[in-house]
């Protein structure tokens, strides 16, 4: 019997098992273990055919199912509970796990709904309460170190979770090769060597990175620089050619 399943949907063996049970409209407390085991194995075969990676979790579950299946054929084990002898069903443990997992899956669904609602709320930033402070001359002695400390403090404080910032629309739209070449030349007029990473700043957009990279290629072609890399994917050393090299 072949069983068609949508392969990517399952988050793991528990998820798959639960879906199989749901589809069959089976009582979770009385799982027909033969049928479910076959379907589970069919699914794994299908994954194999599709060359999908079968994680060990699926294999462990398959083994568990087969073990339960074989135990079902044997006479039931018995145990004493409160002085009464009861039969142990080999499916017991698996059922408990499934029921528990299902409960959390349902909760996750509910949480998803509240998440959608709450994500539609806007809050506002705090008002600047420093207006109540005694006026001090904040910008007294400005130096670069202070500026750097300030931005680093902000960065380390920032929970970059929800915020909100879309700098895309603010970015300049084009980065001309000429501009980038100029900027590289200025750098190289001050020192003979510059790292590619040094050309980029926090504000650098993807387009700008590409523009810089193309500029380097252009400068190499023009033989005004040569480039070196210590290893693959490492930073690029951009080195100015000296007069005699030209």
């Amino acid at each position, binding site marked *: 019997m072949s069983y068609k399943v949508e392969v990517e949907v399952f*988050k*793991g*063996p*528990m*998820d798959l098992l639960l879906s199989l049970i749901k589809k069959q409209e089976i*009582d979770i*407390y*009385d799982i027909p273990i033969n049928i479910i085991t076959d379907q589970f194995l069919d699914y794994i075969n299908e994954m194999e055919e599709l060359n999908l990676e079968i*994680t060990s*979790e699926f294999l462990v*579950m398959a083994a568990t199912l087969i073990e339960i299946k074989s135990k079902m054929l044997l006479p039931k084990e018995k145990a004493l509970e409160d002085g009464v002898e*009861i*039969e142990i*069903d080999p499916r*017991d443990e698996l*059922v*408990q*796990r499934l*029921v*528990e*997992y299902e*409960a*959390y*899956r*349902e*909760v*996750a669904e*509910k*949480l*998803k709904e*509240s*998440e*959608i*609602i*709450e*994500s*539609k*709320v*806007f*809050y*506002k*930033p*705090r*008002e600047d*309460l420093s207006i109540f402070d005694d006026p001090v001359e904040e910008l007294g002695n400005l130096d670069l170190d202070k500026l750097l400390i300030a931005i680093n403090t902000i960065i380390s404080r920032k*929970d970059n*979770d929800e915020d*909100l*910032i*879309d700098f895309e629309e603010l970015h300049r739209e084009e980065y001309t090769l000429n501009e980038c070449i100029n900027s590289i030349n200025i750098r190289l007029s001050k020192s003979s060597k510059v790292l590619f990473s040094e050309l980029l700043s926090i504000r650098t957009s993807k387009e700008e990175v590409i523009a810089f990279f193309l500029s380097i290629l252009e400068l190499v072609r023009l033989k005004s620089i040569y480039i070196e890399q210590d290893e693959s994917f490492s930073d690029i050393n951009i080195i100015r050619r000296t007069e005699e090299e030209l």
Partner: protein
Amino acid sequence: MDKREVKSVIEGLLFVWGDPLNIMDLSNVLEVDVKELSSIMKELMDDLDFNRRGLRIIKFNDYYQIGTRPDHYEWIKKLNNKKNTRNLSNASLETLSIIAYKQPIIKSEIDAIRGVRSDKAIETLIERELVQELGRLERTGRPIIYGTTEVFLKHFGLESIDELPEIEDFHKESENEYNYNNDD
């Protein structure tokens, strides 16, 4: 100050503060004791809802915050197009649900319930500040203990962890039902 005026000032304070404000701080500023304030806050929240004001106050644990109504989202988005809402994946939500109900909990317990490894999901949840490390369990391997945060409550509009949707007590139920079916 009469109660009405207290409510009015609270609106102003929450507006100015913007961020979540602790009831202790409100109590200090207003010189109203926490217990009384707590009931005033409840009334104020109800007032805003009942009168369908454009703003609402949410509460999570001891924090209060003023914000807009979720159902005004489409209008406000027209003005302020910057809000990017990244919702959680199903795997993260599943992991988060387990942590929320079973906290404090260690990873191997989460993995056992889900039947898959949860490392990546946990990482995402910590990054988004929905889950935090509470410490380590003093046993071999010293596994990390996880729990939910205040951000978690706010993210899902819960006043406290007790407000999580109820789930059946599966341990008891499964046992009972199971034995029952078994006897058939």
